[in-house]
């Protein structure tokens, strides 16, 4: 008899780990974005998507709210907002 032994790639993609986020989430302001992709590259979860200026977004299904995207943004175009704040709802 065997238990759960192996995991194939992408199997864990269904785990919506964004629920671990407890305090803040990044809010993409879409004002001064220059599409430098720094936020996308530094995201430890790989959950930032986008190509064009002012079109980047974080997938809250996986975002843990660590804030490194907001910290590295050279244009300060990402704000960390409280989970309770209005606007985008936690998915």
């Amino acid at each position: 008899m065997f238990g759960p032994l192996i995991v194939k790639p992408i199997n864990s993609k269904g785990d919506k780990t964004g629920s671990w986020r407890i305090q803040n989430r990044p809010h993409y302001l879409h004002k001064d974005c220059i599409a430098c992709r720094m936020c996308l590259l530094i995201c430890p979860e790989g959950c930032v998507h986008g190509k064009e200026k002012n079109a980047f977004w974080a997938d809250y299904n996986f975002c843990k709210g660590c804030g490194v995207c907001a910290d590295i943004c050279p244009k300060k175009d990402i704000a960390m907002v409280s989970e309770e704040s209005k606007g985008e709802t936690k998915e």
Partner: protein
Amino acid sequence: MKEFVEGSHAIAEIVKSCQPGVISAYPITPQTHIVEDLAQIVADGKLNAQFVNVESEHSAASVVLGASATGVRVYTATSSQGLFYMQEVVFNIAGMRLPVVMTCANRAVSAPINIWNDQQDSLSLRDAGWFQIYAEDNQEAVDFHLIAYRLAEDKRVMLPVMVCMDGFILTHGMETVDLPEQDKVNKFLPNYKPLYKLDPADPMSMGLLADPDYYMETRFAIQETMRKSIGYLSEISKEFNDVFGRDYKDLLVEEYQLKDAEKVIVAMGSVCGTIKEVVDEQRAKGKKVGLLRIISYRPFPYARVYEALKDIPKVAVLDKAVSLGAYAPVAVEIKSTFYGKKKGPKVISSFVAGLGGRDITLETIHEVFRRLTVKEVNFDFVDLKPELLKEEYGE
């Protein structure tokens, strides 16, 4: 082919016949000639395997874990402190269901430093999820390695096996051993085909996080496999007898002169040879004594032990190990076998002997039979030197 060889050398030869692809070991005291000989065999080109020299036993176990996960047959050997240093990985190997075979040359554990024989090292890893089979002589030790690979790689099992042989007494003892011919080994032991393997072409992860939603099932699965494996051991030993012409009954226990016996010793490993000698001697004098040898300690054959001992009035369990602060490791299993059962021995006494290589002589066994009376004793040390014991530290 029969040869007069050292135990360690015989093990190296049988491991060579099993054709492992990766061997890893850390060759420091307490190690044996097993891996030394295997290193020579690989260097001489007689075995097409990778011999990985590592910087510690932790790494040796990790190497065989990783190699086994890629789907190759692996081997390692260690004992005592080396086994303890492997401990973390030992649990991982079982948890990942990798069919690793390891020889444990049973030796005492520190401190104080002692490299001589007892069984404290492997017995302290009894909960790891490994099979533990204990050999009485070098012929058994050789045969058990073949059976170990066959059992470990069985698709219904997929668990590691520790073949335990008493350090020095067996590993450094010279005996005539019938080393199985290669064609027979090939017949009995087919090439290893893994259920899963690490392969870049078909990526997968093994042994990774299992949160509370998953972990318990992995443990239950091993427990259940262990329980069923008691039957597989009998099955495989029968097949082994057919190919090699041996006479193993079931590889769980050996019953020696148990019919109508009144006093029986239960023991494991090479000491059983000495006990058989005493039993023969006593039987010649008309005394009804016998021996029950435990071969498979994990899984523990409760049903077989019950059948063998249910009509015996007095049982002495002779442990070459202690569980400090509790009943000795074999004694606790024998006692729990009979808890709540209608039939069973009136007395199950527990004796500890031979720790740290203190010789268990014929006289020791006679003493155990003498001390086995209607009064039950527990963890009674035999051959103790009271003059070395002090109540207070210092002056």
